[in-house]
């Protein structure tokens, strides 16, 4: 036959079938490894992650296959896309090759023949090899010359890269040797299609068959062995992410980022939170196995970047080490002793430093869920061990006694609105919006000014709203994020009872933490509401002309995305929209904005804790980001961000060149409303 085709197993005798034996052995290694880890995951508690399969498939397509997070780091993109797509194509090429061979052997029918074969060779095999080669060379350059600090540099990493590079080069060599003896002699015009190995083939073609044949035979076998070794190595190295990564992405939480789960049956549970392997859910254990140690989480963690001991990557890898150490013992029915994961390995300080800002989860290419794991470990500290920093004890006591974090009398909650003619829901049960004012908006002097501005906007726009007044208590968010799930549930139930008693459907709030809790977390306790953040309502009022922005305010504004509005709930645009409508103002973006925004330092109940660790305070670091774009106003949309910025501006003597103002204040001023 004189059509281009591949002579499968060219130059390889019947010993060719050993090839399949090696493949089988490699697969057994991998399979056994998966099985061993699977048994450890099964030690974990149940968690529902099998719902909404189509959404999960779409996750796989976006994050496992298209790897949409990769381009955020251009070097990582070149390296990982190169190696991933390259090897994927090589795998496809091998599979097609094998299938063709067996089809031909069994049925005599040949698929890969003629132009199809040439295209296959060019666009699958050789393209794959070339891409992988580019990715690998870039990887060496990246790691040897650029040396990004977030990566680790251990022998294993070099072995893997070396192995992959060797396999690609070796593959080209085998092909070149075959071409030198076949196509190059009979049909040189076919040989070009194998552009990856063609140059080498030309060089080698000068050698006699007596050299080429044995060399090809040996290289072929080296290729088989090295490839199968690489497959088996999946079980012994971070290459396991090829399997656990997509699995973990598939099982990712479909809830808004950072939504926490209740402790089931809290009244009857025997231990609380997580410290031992069986205390975690199977998904949290799978998370640990999926970690590729790329360090993206830690490189984006505001606590870590300001020198605190917390590293989200370490949190995950500590858990993995604990699974490796204790997992097999549990499987043998033993109760392992030795160091405690929480306290000895992951320290209390690390856990308390977390802002629950979600930057780690946002950055993680494996969709690992650090925040729920950290909170679960905090729950262990609080509920099981009672190891709680002083500030947090005060917070809990205040929430318990007074229903707000500062211990103000609950009876005075609505005093801020006394002279504004704001009605309570008891007075106006037909209001369109129940405005959830929140603790900061009710008691904190600075934030009361924002509440008053918002009240005036709503009144001017003719929005019919009412507040709960003294019946409102803290949503429980700070208690929950500080690990006190029980206190959270008490507060949540109290609030849900009040809201449901008034038949509340639609809630407006200026606090992203309240927003997140009311919208996403009260569902688990029977509170289903449509929740609107004030930035959303204000944007709507501005767009529809119900609030007219007439006076110029600020000149150069930058907007700080609150974590619980932006990253956790995907609300980025309304505030920006309203800000760009302010006459005379221009909006400049900080380098880290939208989903990459850097926390103000107040999340995860940290606003109530003194910042004692690290070389810099988080709010000072964020203020530096603000200063870098040189605005005269930082626009915020969160009471805690406001507290953190006010603090930073005061402690750094910046108040005469920079102001922190809430969106509501800017809009009210521009609309000519009173700010008193």
């Amino acid at each position: 036959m004189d059509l281009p085709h591949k002579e499968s197993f060219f130059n390889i005798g019947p010993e060719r079938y050993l090839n399949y034996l090696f493949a089988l052995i490699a697969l057994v290694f991998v399979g056994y490894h998966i099985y061993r880890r699977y048994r450890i995951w099964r030690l974990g508690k149940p968690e529902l992650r099998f719902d909404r399969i189509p959404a999960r498939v779409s996750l796989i397509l976006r994050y496992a296959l298209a790897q949409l997070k990769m381009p955020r780091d251009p070097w990582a993109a070149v390296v990982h896309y190169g190696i991933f797509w390259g090897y994927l194509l090589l795998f496809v090429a091998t599979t097609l090759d094998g299938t063709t061979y067996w089809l031909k052997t069994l049925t005599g029918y040949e698929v890969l023949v003629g132009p199809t074969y040439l295209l296959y060779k060019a666009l699958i095999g050789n393209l794959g090899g070339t891409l992988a080669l580019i990715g690998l060379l870039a990887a060496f350059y990246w790691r040897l010359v650029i040396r990004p600090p977030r990566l680790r540099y251990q022998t294993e990493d070099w072995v893997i890269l070396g192995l992959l590079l060797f396999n690609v080069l070796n593959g080209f060599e085998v092909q070149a040797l075959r071409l030198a003896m076949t196509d190059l002699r009979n049909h040189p015009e076919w040989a070009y299609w194998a552009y990856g190995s063609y140059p080498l083939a030309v060089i080698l073609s000068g050698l006699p068959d007596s050299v080429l044949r044995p060399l090809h035979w040996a290289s072929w076998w080296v290729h088989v062995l090295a490839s199968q070794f690489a497959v088996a190595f999946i079980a012994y190295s971070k290459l396991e992410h090829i399997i656990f990564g997509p699995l973990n992405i598939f099982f990712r939480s479909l809830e808004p980022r950072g939504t926490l789960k209740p402790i089931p049956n809290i009244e009857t549970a025997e231990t609380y939170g997580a410290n031992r392997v069986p205390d975690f859910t199977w998904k949290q254990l799978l998370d640990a196995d999926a970690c590729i140690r790329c360090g993206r989480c830690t490189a984006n963690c505001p606590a870590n970047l300001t020198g605190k001991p917390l590293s989200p990557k370490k949190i995950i890898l500590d858990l993995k080490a604990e699974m490796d150490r204790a997992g097999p013992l549990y499987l043998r029915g033993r109760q392992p002793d030795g160091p405690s994961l929480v306290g000895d390995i992951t320290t209390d300080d690390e856990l308390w430093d977390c802002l629950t800002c979600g930057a780690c989860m946002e950055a993680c290419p494996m969709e690992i869920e650090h925040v729920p794991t950290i909170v679960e470990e905090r729950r262990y500290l609080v509920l099981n061990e009672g190891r709680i920093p002083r500030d947090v004890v005060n917070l809990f006591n205040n929430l318990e006694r007074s229903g707000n974090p500062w211990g103000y009398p609950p009876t005075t909650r609505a005093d801020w609105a006394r002279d504004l003619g704001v009605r309570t829901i008891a007075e106006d049960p037909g209001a369109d919006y129940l405005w959830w004012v929140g603790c900061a908006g009710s008691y904190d002097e600075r934030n009361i000014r924002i509440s008053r501005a918002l009240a005036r906007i709503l009144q001017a726009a003719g929005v019919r709203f009412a507040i709960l007044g003294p019946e409102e208590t803290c949503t429980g968010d700070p208690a929950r994020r500080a690990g006190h799930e029980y206190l959270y549930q008490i507060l949540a139930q109290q609030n849900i009872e009040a809201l449901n008693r008034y038949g509340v459907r639609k809630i407006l709030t200026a606090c992203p933490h309240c927003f997140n809790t009311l919208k996403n977390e009260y569902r688990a306790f029977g509170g289903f509401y449509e929740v609107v953040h004030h930035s959303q309502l204000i944007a709507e009022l501005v767009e529809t002309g119900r609030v007219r922005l007439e006076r110029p305010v600020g000149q150069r504004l930058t907007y700080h995305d609150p974590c619980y509005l932006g990253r956790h709930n995907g609300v980025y645009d309304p505030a920006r929209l309203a800000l760009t409508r302010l006459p005379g103002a221009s909006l400049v973006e900080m380098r880290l904005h939208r989903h990459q925004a850097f926390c103000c330092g107040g999340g995860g109940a940290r606003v109530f804790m003194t910042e004692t660790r690290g070389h810099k305070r988080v709010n000072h670091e964020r203020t530096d980001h603000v200063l870098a774009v040189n605005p005269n106003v930082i626009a915020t949309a969160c009471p805690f961000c406001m507290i953190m910025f006010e603090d930073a501006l005061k402690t750094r003597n910046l108040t005469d060149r920079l102001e922190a103002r809430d969106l509501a204040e800017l809009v009210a001023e521009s609309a000519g409303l009173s700010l008193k």
Partner: protein
Amino acid sequence: MNIVVCIKYVPDWEAPASQFRIEDSRLVPAPGIAYRISDTDDEAIEAALQLKEKHGGRVTAISLGPASARDGLKHALAMGCDQAVLLDDPAFEDSDAAGTAAVLAAAIRKLGDVDLILTGRQAADWDQGQVHAGIAEFLGLPAVIPARHIEWTGSEFIVHRIYEEGYEEIAVKPPCVVACSNEIAEPRYPTLRGIMAASRAQIPVWTAADLGIDPGRVGRAGRRTRVLRLYAPQVEAKCEFIEGENPEEIAAKLVQRLREEKLL
């Protein structure tokens, strides 16, 4: 080692004055005001728990008060006390320090076999600081008031008693009364297991009859002291900014001002 801790459950003393009314020389807190275990009483509980954790034994919390003091006792149980007793009887109402001490002493006698009685140095509501001495008096025990440290040697307690210039170390044999100051320990926050156990615990109530107390000697009837006048003082706060070129200058001016006000 058996320890009894006497606690008082009082309206949040950090609440602003606007949260209280005065009626007939009596203090009426606003409805909804938070109650909590009095300052230094919770430190006394912690000190007791730490002694128990080191040396074994039982810790019993007792409180004289209205039924709502049960919540305070529940908190003590949640922190780790082994049992709690509420002393409640209409006859106890409005006791003065002597009356309160008499009731508590009777309860401690009824508990029997006690090595150490801990109290706070003074309750956060009236700040009298008399009950501990009264208990010691009624029971004929030694008392160390106030203490910032306590330890057990196996045969006696070593107590650091605070006085103006520092503290003195006193060795005292059990049983004895020790009034705790807030330096003695940092009160723990109860674990959830503690909270759950406490919420299920039964707290017995002892009345005057249970304690064999003559109702005429305690409560309103038995008062030996009388409040003449109760009023909220007018506090005037003035804020003054001290300015200067540099911190040194500001500090110097501040010192001068404080001297002028005879505060230094």
